[in-house]
C-alpha cells in the first residue's frame, strides 16, 4: 500500500508515506513546505551552518514521488522556498533540475508566508488554487470545507511498549487536510498544540508518515 486512502468532500485522496498528497482522479501530486534553501538562509542570518544539501535531498524525494505517481499536475503548497533570496540563491544545477521536473506538467506554486511573490522558475504562481471540490492554499481557513493546506507541519507522537515514536503527519477531518512538511530540515508542530486542536474537528485523525502510513485518532 502506497498510502492511506480517504475521501474529502467527495474527492478520493491518498496520504502518501513520503508526506505528499495524491489525487488520482486529477492525477495531481501536492507537496507542502519544501523550504528549499533553508540551510543557506540560516547561515546567511548567522544561525547554525548546516551542510547545504537539503535542497538536493528534497528534490530527490520529489523526483522519486513524481516517478512513482506519474502525476501530470504538481501543486507546491507554499513555503517552497525558505525566503525569496533562497529561491534566487539556488544553484544553476538545482534550477535546471526543477525545470526538468516541470517539463510536460502543469506546475503551481502556491504563495506561502515565507515566499510571497512569484519566483523566476516557470510554472504558475497563485495565492490559492480552487479545484472543485477542493481548495489548495498555504494556511488553513477555518470556515472552508475541502481545504488542503500546509504551514503548520504537524507531527504526532505515539508511545508503545516503552518506545516513543514521533513522525510528521497529515491531520484529516471532514473539512480539511493539513499536510506535513515535505522539505528536509523542517521541524514540526505537535498535534496537541492548541492551534491544531482548535482547527480540527473532534473526530480528526492523524496519518503518520513512514513506510506504512497509518491513521490514529489525532493526539491532543
Amino acid at each position: 500500500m502506497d498510502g492511506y486512502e480517504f475521501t474529502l468532500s467527495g474527492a478520493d485522496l491518498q496520504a502518501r508515506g513520503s508526506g505528499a498528497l495524491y489525487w488520482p482522479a486529477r492525477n495531481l501530486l501536492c507537496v507542502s513546505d519544501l523550504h528549499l534553501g533553508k540551510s543557506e538562509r540560516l547561515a546567511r542570518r548567522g544561525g547554525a551552518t548546516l551542510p547545504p544539501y537539503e535542497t538536493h535531498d528534497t528534490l530527490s524525494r520529489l523526483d522519486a514521488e513524481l516517478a512513482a505517481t506519474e502525476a501530470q499536475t504538481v501543486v507546491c503548497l507554499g513555503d517552497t522556498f525558505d525566503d525569496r533570496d533562497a529561491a534566487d540563491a539556488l544553484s544553476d544545477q538545482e534550477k535546471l533540475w526543477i525545470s526538468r521536473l516541470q517539463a510536460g506538467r502543469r506546475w503551481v506554486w502556491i504563495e506561502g508566508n515565507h515566499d510571497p511573490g512569484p519566483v523566476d522558475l516557470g510554472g504558475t504562481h497563485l495565492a490559492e488554487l480552487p479545484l472543485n471540490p477542493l481548495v489548495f492554499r498555504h494556511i488553513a481557513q477555518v470556515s472552508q470545507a475541502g481545504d488542503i493546506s500546509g504551514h503548520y507541519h504537524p507531527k504526532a507522537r505515539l508511545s508503545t511498549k516503552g518506545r516513543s515514536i514521533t513522525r510528521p503527519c497529515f491531520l484529516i477531518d471532514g473539512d480539511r487536510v493539513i499536510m506535513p512538511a515535505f522539505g528536509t530540515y523542517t521541524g514540526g508542530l505537535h498535534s496537541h498544540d492548541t492551534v491544531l486542536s482548535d482547527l480540527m474537528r473532534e473526530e480528526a485523525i492523524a496519518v503518520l508518515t513512514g513506510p506504512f502510513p497509518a491513521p490514529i485518532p489525532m493526539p491532543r
Partner: protein
Amino acid sequence: MTALPSPLSDWFDARGWSAHPHQLEMLARADEPALLLIAPTGGGKTLAGFLPTLSELASEPHKGLHTLYISPLKALASDIKRNLRTPVDEMGLPIRIDDRTGDTTATRKKAQRVDPPHILLTTPESLALLTSYPDAPHIFKGLQRVIVDEIHALAESKRGDQLFLALSRLQTLAPGLRRVGLSATVDRPDDIAGLLACHPDPCAVICADPGPAPDIAMLDTAEAPPWSGGGAAYAIPAVLEQVKAHKTTLIFHNTRAQAEIFFHNLWLANEDGLPIGIHHGSLDRAQREKVEAAMVRGDLRAIVCTGSLDLGLDWGDVDLVIQVGAPKNVKRLVQRIGRANHRYNAPSKALLVPANRFEVIECHAALAAARENDLDGDPRGSGPLDVLCQHILIAACSGPFTDDKLFSEIVSAGPYVTLSRDTFDACLDFVATGGYAFRTYDRWQRLQERNGAWQLRDPRAAARIRMNIGTIQDADLLKVRMRGRGPALGEVEEAFAASLSQGDTFLIGGKIVRYEGLKEMTVEVSRDKGRKPKLAVFSGTKFATSTQLSQRVLRMFKQRDWPELPDHTREWLHLQTRVSSLPQPGRLLVESFPHDGREHICVYGFAGKNAQQTLGLLLTKRMEEMGLAPLGFVATDYATLIWGLDPIDDAAPLFDLARLRDGLDGWLAGNAVMKRTFRGVATIAGLIERNMPGQRKTGRQATFSSDILYETLLKYDADHLLMQVTRTEAMRGLVDFARIEDMARRVHGRIETTRLDRVTPLAAPLFLEVGKVPVQGEAEERLLKQETERLMQAAGLARPDPHL
C-alpha cells in the same frame, strides 16, 4: 645521592625530617629533559616534583615564569599553592606563586600575563588558553620546568592529549624546558613516559618504594545485599559502625547519584549525629570547598564522595577508605585505597561494600587482583585528530605559523609521534576551510595563507575560538539554585532536569529539594523537608569494568561451589545454576525469556562493555535481516540484553561471524552510538560551537544540529575528516570487533540457548543498566501498525482494510 642544598636542608633539619630517596633522585637528575616519578599516595610526590624548582630558585634569582605546575583538578592547583607557600615562606625564599584556573578573576589573569609569577599552578584547559594569546612567547620565554601532577589521570583522556600538544608549543617558546610527571601506581609506566617525553628525547622513569601492602577486605554486614541495584542501603549500619571506629573515613561511590542516595540514608541512620559530609562533582564549588576545609581541619568523621576525591587533595587524617559498589577497575581501586593513611610506610586500610549480589563476585575478583597487584589497563592509540584540529586553531589565535614548523612541533608530542604529514595537512585543511561539505560557508573559511604563513582570516574569530577551548564533554549540566536568589546547590544533567515536572523532589547535596521550574538555564528548587525524594538519577561518570576483571569473574564461575563468598551470594549463584546455568569460559550462554510484554535474549559474552555493545549492534542487525524485529539493547561488561517482538529459541544462527562482519560499517554508520561519538568529535574540532558570545547552547540544541550534521555528512561527504575521526574513535573505543572474534574463537560454535519463562537471577541486574540503545527498523513499523490499529479500534474509528 645528592644532598639537599641549603636553605632546603636547613628547613628539613629544623623539622627533623629527611628527604625520601626518590625525592633526592629527582633532584640529582633535575637536568634530564624529562622524568616520570611513580610513587604511592603519601610518598611526597608533589614535593619531589618541586624540590629542583625550589633549589634552583633558592640559588639563583630568576625573572619571570620558572615552573609551570599542571593538575587535572582546579582544586588541586589552589591546594598545592597553599601547601607550597608554607615552606617557601619559612625558608624565606623570594618566590612568587600564583594559580590560574577557570575560577581566577579576569584582573588577576591579566596581571599574570603582564608579569608572570615564578611558579604558576594551572589546569590543561587554562594552559591551552594561555598559549592562544599573542603574548604567549613573552609569558613562557624563560620557562625552565613543567610539572604534570597526577599524570596517570590525564594520560587516559583527550585532556592529556591536549596538554601534551601544549607542551610541544611551550618547548618551542622555551627550548630549555624540562618536564616532570608525577603518577600514582600504574600498570605501564613506560607508556606514560612516552607521552610525557619531548620526542626524540627520552623520559626516564623513577619508581619510589611502593610501601607496605594495603590491608583490604570485604565489609561484613548482617543483611544480604539485594539482587540488583546500586544503593547499598543494606550496608548502612555496618558502615556507620566503621565510621565510629575510625578517625576519618572516605566512602567512595562510583556515581554521584549513588553517593547522594547513600548519604541521605546514612544521615537518616546517623542517630549519634556524627559529622559526615558529601563531596562530588555536581555540587557547587563553594559547597565542595566548605567540605574540603572541614576535612582538613579534621572536623568530619566521614565524607561520602565520588571520583572527585580520587586525586590527592591533601586531607587530614584519613585512616579508612570504604569503596561502595564494585570497583570496576583494579588500578582505580588501588589508587583509592592509597587515599587512606597519608603516612608513608604504614599500610592503608580499605573495605569493599558490594551494592548487589553480582558485585559481591566482582569485589572478590577485584580483591584478589589487588592483592596480587595485577593492575589493568588498555593501551591508548595515537592522538585523536579532533584535539589536533583544536590545537591548530589555538595556534592560529596566538599568531601566524608555518605549516612545516607547526608539524615538526606536533610530532614531538608523545601522542602524535606517528602522525603523518598527510593527516596533518588534512586537519589543517579542515580548520582552514571546514572541509568539502562546508567550503561554501564563509564562517568556516577560518584560516588563510599569507606570505607563507597561516593566520586567522578574521582576527575577531579568536575570541570565539577561545570560548570553546577544552576537551571535556560532560558539559550538559544545569545549575541548581534555591528559588528567589538563593544559594547555588550544584549541577544536574540537562536530561535529568528535562524529566522533572513541578513538584517533583530529588536529592542534591544531601538535601531533598522540590523542583519549581527552569529559569534561564537554571533549575530553580525550593526546600522540601520530610518528603520522600524521587530518585537522584543524575548519573555522573560511569566506569566500565576492565576486561581483566571480567575474565577473573568468569573463572570463578567454573567452580562448583563458592566457599569464599557469603551465603547469600552463593545461594544466588546456585539458584542461577538451578533455573539456567552459569556462563563458562569455553561456551557461550544465551538465555531467552519473555518479560514485560517483550521478548529478550541475554548473551553472556564476558567480552567487556565495548565489545558487548558492538555485539548488540551486530546481533540486532542480524535479527533485523532475519525479520526478528529487535527493538533495542543494552550492554554491560559481561552481557548484552536484547529485546524485540519475537521469541528466539535458537540464537546460534545469529552468530554467523562472516555475516556479522558483513555490512558492519553501514549498520554502524546509522547508529546512535556513532552520532554520540560524532557530537563529541565535532565539538572538540570546533565545528559545533557550544559557547557563543552572549549565549550558551543547550545540550538539546547541540544534539539537534549535530545529528543533522552527521546524517548529512554521511550522505554527501562520508569521507569528511570528522567522519573519519568518528569512525576511528568508534572502532577504537566503542567497537572492539577483535574482542568479539576472540570470544567466537574461544566459544567455537558452542552456543547454548536456554529458553526460560522468566528473567533469570543473573540477567535481572541488566534491566537497571543505563545507556539503552534503541534500534530503528521493522519492529518500529510493526509496533506502529499494532498501536495504530488498537487506537483506531478503541476510538471506534476502525474500518476494514480494503487491501486484505
